[in-house]
């Protein structure tokens, strides 16, 4: 380590007194100050509110069902957090989900391939499709959102071609893949376990590793990051690959549970839920910051809203509108609260 020890000469620079404040309540405060507190409370409030009107919503079966639906979305949203934190957006995750699931199902259909092997290959396909997004955007010098605007349809279209536009027949539903994923393990759906394990692993990767730090650095000031020697293009390929792989993981979990695959799965409906989950979770679309656990909460909120609508017997024509409106309220409230908190922090500083 170099020590510029020549600077010991007392050059007269006025030095304001450091204001360190000791605070005994700090650990307690910290517990209640975690970033996702606001939306967690919102989630709890939403669940209780719906439960107050329709007790059936709180039944274990229903809650597990909501958890499972949310998990499929959350797992992809984790990857989206990395991309959003870089100031990028992948629109093709729904297509990646569809294509990798269809291919995997096709390979295992009719006793063709060991289902587990087909699943691993399917995840590999997802990662590959994500990498293609990243590489294309590096080669064409385009933001990922533009490249994936194209691959969104392209991947979904390939899924249609591969499946011959119909559901995959003759899935080996007797295999351990389907029996294992089809039922709850230790009281929770397998997808929920996957979502929980991944939230821990990826949250750690996002906040504590070199990769995560470089992702946030690029999103925070792309030019300064490049100027510091961070290979932004390569980091973007990694993040896009991660998102593709996670989309495939989510697809495999759904395949195991629903025991069926057709080319209409995934698509823009799933895609928008994923983006909504990440954004509701508190990841800024402008880059620099993000939260992986927030994406899980965000996915839960989306799933709760969708499920709650059924209980309120809202005419199906209106359900899309209501979903959208509730999302706007959720994101808007959070944004306004953050804004106020920041303004207050600035006042105090």
């Amino acid at each position, binding site marked *: *380590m*170099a*020590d*510029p*020890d*020549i*600077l010991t*000469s007392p*050059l*007269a*620079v*006025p*030095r*304001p007194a*450091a*204001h*360190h404040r000791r605070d005994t309540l700090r650990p307690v405060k910290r517990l209640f100050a975690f970033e996702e507190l606001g939306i967690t409370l919102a989630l709890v409030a939403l669940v209780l509110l719906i439960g107050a009107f329709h007790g059936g919503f709180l039944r274990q079966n229903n809650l597990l069902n909501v958890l499972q639906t949310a998990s499929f979305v959350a797992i992809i949203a984790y990857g989206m957090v990395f991309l959003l934190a870089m100031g990028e957006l992948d629109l093709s995750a729904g297509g990646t989900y569809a294509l990798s699931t269809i291919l995997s199902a096709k390979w295992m259909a009719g006793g063709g391939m060991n289902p587990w092997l087909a699943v691993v290959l399917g995840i590999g396909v997802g990662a590959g499709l994500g990498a293609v997004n990243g590489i294309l955007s590096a080669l064409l010098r385009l933001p990922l959102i533009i490249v994936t605007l194209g691959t969104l349809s392209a991947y979904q279209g390939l899924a249609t071609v591969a499946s011959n536009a119909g559901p995959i027949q003759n899935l080996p539903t007797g295999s351990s893949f389907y029996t294992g994923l089809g039922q709850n393990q230790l009281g929770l759906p397998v997808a929920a376990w996957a979502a929980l394990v991944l939230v821990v692993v990826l949250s750690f990767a996002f906040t*504590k*590793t*070199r*990769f995560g*730090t*470089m992702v*946030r*650095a690029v999103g*925070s*000031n792309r*030019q*300064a*990051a*490049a*100027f*510091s*020697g*961070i*290979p932004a293009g*390569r980091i973007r390929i990694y993040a896009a690959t991660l998102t593709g792989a996670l989309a495939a993981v989510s697809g495999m979990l759904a395949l195991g549970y629903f025991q069926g695959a057709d080319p209409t799965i995934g698509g823009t409906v799933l895609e928008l839920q994923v983006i909504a989950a990440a954004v509701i979770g508190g990841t800024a679309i402008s880059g*620099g910051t993000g939260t992986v656990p927030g994406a899980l909460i965000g996915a839960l909120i989306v799933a709760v809203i969708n499920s709650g609508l059924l209980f309120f017997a809202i005419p199906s024509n209106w359900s899309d509108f209501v979903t959208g409106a509730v999302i706007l309220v959720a994101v808007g409230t959070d944004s306004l609260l953050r804004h106020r908190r920041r303004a207050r922090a600035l006042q*105090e*500083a």
Partner: protein
Amino acid sequence: MYVATDVSKQYGGVRALAGVDVEIRPGEVQGLLGANGAGKSTLVKILVGAEAPTSGTLTLGGEPVRFANVGQAVANGVSIVSQELNLFPDLDLLENLFVLREPRHGGVLLNRREMARRAKPVLRSVGLGVRLGRRVGTLRLAEQQLVEIARALLDRPRILFLDEPTSALQASERERLLEVVRGLRESGVAVVFVSHLLGDVFSICDTITVLRNGRVVVSRRPRGEISIQEVVGHMLGDVEGARRRLPERGGNGTDGPGLRLSSLTVGSALEPFDLEAKAGEVVGLAGLDGSGPHVVFDVLFGRRRRDGGTVVMPDGSRGRRTTWGAVRSGIAFVPADRKRLGVMLEKPIYENVSLVSAGPLRRMGLVLRRPAMTARARRWGEQLRIVMPSPRAHVGELSGGNQQKVVFAKWLDAEPKVVLLDDPTRGVDVGARVEMHALIADMAARRRVVLMTSSDLEELADVCDRVIVFFQGRAVGEIPRERLSEHRLLEAIGTGAVAS
């Protein structure tokens, strides 16, 4: 006349201004000086309506005033041209001049003819002769600065604050700007000139005011009655400090392998350029904007393709063609544009400091531990005297000089072999400037190769062992240390002839 009486400003527990009295008179150019954290920018913000004072009064022409925002101040004839350019690079010159107050046909269509009619005399007075439809992003920095001044002049201000107007300018452009300021004085405008460039302050200002620790220590002293040394002494609060010299450097670069460039060529921007810089040598590259030094830097740092020639690093390896590769091969680059390229303002200091060593250099492993990073930041903070509340504070909260020290810390933490410095002391105060010059000397003492360019020729003359002079893309000669002076450099870069 604009008078501030007993103005104080409190930020939380920190007192930025403690009872300041200032008087600004028409037809007078007043220099406002002070080191980092002296309260200079706070005072200016209060005077131009960007902040409200905690206590104290402002009177304008005898009437007490209270501005809720900058717009109100402008309406009352008080304008500012700030150091950070607030221009829209994708809009053209006219659109930039009239943003939010465009003259319109019938309230809808832009009336460009009217804009041009009003803009022309102002542009002429600042000496900006570019096409009105030119996109502002394509103008050079100095020209953009003039656009900013022209925009302020459109409001016909009676009191104009110029915050570091000359620090980004080349010598000839600086002279033109000072001429503009003289013209304003003739027409009775009160000008407050805030700058770190003491030479400019002394060549233009009628009176000088110095702040230190939130108080006025020199009040409207006529220029003739005070010397640069005295002013520096007052700024630093240490009259002795002003006389301190650069630390002596033991023996100029002699042994050890250095950096070798042979026939480096970039289209018409750089004619074949050879350089052999020894380890421990500080080599200056001087030239007007676009004459070559920045091209050399950009090629070395992998930001620009070279058409020919070779680069050999001190360890014998070849020069890389990407920034990532350049950084990994041991090159550091302290950029002139600190906010855009140097730091991440919204990230904590420790992340900024560790960015290079933890990122591309992979020195801190796969998992980055925050305690290790804050410890490093704290140590650099002590060594470079970074004034910071804590290593976790965001870089954006620091003053300019301290932000620049964070940039130095980030690159020193990477232990580079070759250091490129582009205007390393732009916008920092005298005290921090002296410290940075000491840092540069220290880099050389540690056998690093230092290449430096600066718009401040006095700095080049002070710091470098030798300076290579560029003119229109060609290295035209070299001035050795013993013959270096600001005067000689100015002449050389302006004429392309190095007198022997």
